[in-house]
């Protein structure tokens, strides 16, 4: 899931300066689960905007904000007039959602959230980063623990000198050293040969330019 968090209200207020009629779009998927762009948060945002003297022309929470098809079905068709009447659209979704809204509606968009990472949900409001979408998955070699996402330096051959007692210096010792976790996991599985094997420099070419996949 894509983890998002709200931008500070003052920042949003600044973006909306000069715009009076606002349409709000949330997201029925990740941002709903994150409680950052679900129906409840969209309604609360509408109240906030009114308290700033704005007119909320309408709002919608599409099934997924990053999917053009849901945007057409859940936003454009049912809310055509109120959407058109707005000076700006405040989007409470991840960065992909904001851009999808810009592309599909052609409206001026204002992001209300920061997109922070691709993560897992441990329980409500507890998310942890697990994947950096590097485009060349190496989880087989690392006991199912990703060093690209979970090592602060993204090292392929850790641990580094910044670990002590299995904790990471870069997070002020708040998170586990991914490479100590990998060591423990592979040891448990009797696969320390994988740990010992040097991993050669990663081919970042699959990652380093804009990506798309169009299958026919």
């Amino acid at each position, binding site marked *: 899931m894509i983890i998002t968090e709200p931008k500070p209200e003052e920042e949003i207020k600044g973006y909306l300066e000069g715009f009076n009629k606002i349409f709000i779009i949330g997201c029925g998927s990740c941002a709903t689960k994150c409680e950052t762009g679900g129906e409840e948060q969209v309604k609360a945002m509408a109240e906030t905007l009114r308290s700033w003297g704005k007119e909320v022309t309408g709002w919608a929470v599409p099934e997924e904000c990053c999917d053009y098809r849901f945007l057409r079905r859940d936003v454009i068709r049912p809310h055509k007039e109120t959407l058109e009447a707005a000076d700006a659209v405040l989007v409470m979704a991840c960065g992909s959602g904001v851009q999808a809204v810009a592309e599909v509606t052609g409206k001026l968009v204002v992001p209300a959230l920061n997109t922070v990472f691709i993560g897992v949900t441990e329980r409500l409001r507890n998310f942890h980063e697990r994947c950096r979408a590097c485009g060349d998955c190496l989880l087989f070699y690392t006991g199912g623990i990703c060093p690209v996402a979970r090592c602060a330096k993204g090292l392929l*051959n850790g641990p*580094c*000198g910044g670990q002590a007692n299995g904790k990471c*210096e*870069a997070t002020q010792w708040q998170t586990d050293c991914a490479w100590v976790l990998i*060591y423990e996991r592979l040891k448990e599985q009797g696969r320390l040969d994988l740990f010992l094997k040097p991993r050669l420099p990663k081919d970042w070419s699959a990652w380093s330019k804009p990506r798309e996949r169009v299958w026919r």
Partner: protein
Amino acid sequence: MAEKPVYSLFMKNLRAGKFVYTGEAEPHKTTDISDLIESFKALKGYVIAINVTDNPTAYAYISSLVASYLIQRETGIEAIYQVTCRDRNRLAITSDLLGAYALGIRNVLALTGDHPCVGDNPQAKPVFDLDSTTLLYLIRRMVDEGVDLAGNKIEHPPKFHVGIAANPNADPIEPELLKIERKVSLGAEFIQTQCIYDIEVAKAFLKEAERWKIPVLIGITPFKSVGMMKYMIQYVPGIKVPKEIQERIIEAKKRGGKEAVYEENIEIFTEMIKELKRTTRLAGCHMMAVGFEWIVPKIIERVEGGRPSYIEAL
């Protein structure tokens, strides 16, 4: 087995089984390192080479390549050019290494580098395109095969001796040892360790290191003051300073102020190095006395009973 080629005095002395000392120069955020150079001139004949740090603890300082060149040229002591992966990708590192060889540098220490968040520009985007292991692999390919990482041919390939760092204080130690083994399998030629104060930690590490069959220099960092000792204990990950050493330093301070602290340092590390020379296969010591380099010859003289007898020509 064919004799491995030797490109530096540092390696020549190690191969000949000489007990060697290296120093550590930490150039700062400045364009003038003449004071640093002056302080190292006094170490000529005592240290066989000087490590030159690359933006240590992620502080943006004068380039370690430039400083390595200047120190080597002005002091006549070989540099061990430290290269980290934090600030440069494989392109930049490749070109710096080519430049380093052109400038006469023959020893490189391949490091990962501290995370920018502990440094003086914590907003920086970390690079880490390579890590210490893959950097070592790059250098081996440049030296052994005359190509870069992508296999592109180098005209006049460089010849370096490449070393690695090790942290004998690491807890847990097993993944650290396996990591070193990885690098030895790729062709690391020497090891310089983080500072060690607990002689038992040093002995245990040196015992492990025997199977790698490459020279190990242990890190020695004397305490400039009681405050510095307390800082190291509190903030440097994994540093263990035995109670006895702490007490000796504190006692010395009470007894005779900072002069007595210096003298106690010389005593403590002389005892430690002598004991390790006697009981282990230690190849040398890496003396990190940043800011009070003058203490290094004093320790060495007391251990060796004079200047070490180095081979002075390639």
